[in-house]
């Protein structure tokens, strides 16, 4: 899938100018930072109604609570009561640099507050697995 820059058509590859973007290109896409680190997948996108009736995407939302809500609306309430939004994280849509096989972000991984679930698993789970190199 050809990548498309979020801003600046001058960066778009020839022949890619008219490629239509879809929600499926953003949602569940792997988020990669400027330093090449994978920091999770967007579970959903928060949008705001404009005064003119437009719907504008504002923030990528990450976290298990939102994922459960997409599986079934019946899970929204229990997930909210259980998790209380503690594991949800948001990234402003302006941070999206390029949409392709991965969703590329403008800054380094340390600049985004997306929790450290992956690092926690590496530190506490993978270290017991032989050959993990830790």
């Amino acid at each position, binding site marked *: 899938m050809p990548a*498309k820059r979020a801003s600046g058509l001058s960066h778009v590859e020839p022949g890619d100018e008219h490629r239509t*973007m879809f929600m499926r290109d953003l949602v569940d896409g792997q988020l990669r930072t400027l330093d090449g680190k994978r920091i999770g997948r967007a579970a*959903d996108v928060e949008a705001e*109604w404009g005064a003119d009736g437009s*719907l*504008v995407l504002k923030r990528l*939302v990450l976290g298990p609570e939102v994922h459960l*809500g997409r599986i079934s609306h019946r899970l929204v309430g229990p997930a909210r009561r259980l998790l209380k939004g503690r594991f949800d994280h948001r990234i402003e849509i302006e941070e999206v640099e390029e949409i392709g096989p991965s969703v590329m972000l403008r800054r380094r991984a340390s600049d985004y507050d997306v929790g450290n679930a992956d690092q926690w698993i590496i530190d506490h789970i993978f270290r017991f697995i032989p050959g993990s190199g830790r």
Partner: protein
Amino acid sequence: MSAATSKSPDAPRTMLVAQTLIGVQVVAASGKKLGHVIDLELDPENGFRITAIELGRFGWLDRLHVLRPVAHGRSSSGPRVIPWSDVDRLAGRKLHLKTEAGGADT
């Protein structure tokens, strides 16, 4: 997050798009059921606005493209696309259009 919202000024201003819009039924102005939202087109060059909705007749089967191998060669029609400007309001799990057919492309 309430699933019921609309374009009216007193409606909730934010929503989770995939959770709220994907899968909802699309209803024409006359009340005719047109299908379900399987995806949304967006314009990154214009502030990430939603520009159109993509309709499928079979809900999650369309979303997962399960029917694509079956439909291939038997139907020349692609997914139907309705411009976002034709959307009137979202009430519960139904997306109401201002127009009869929403100008759907086939």
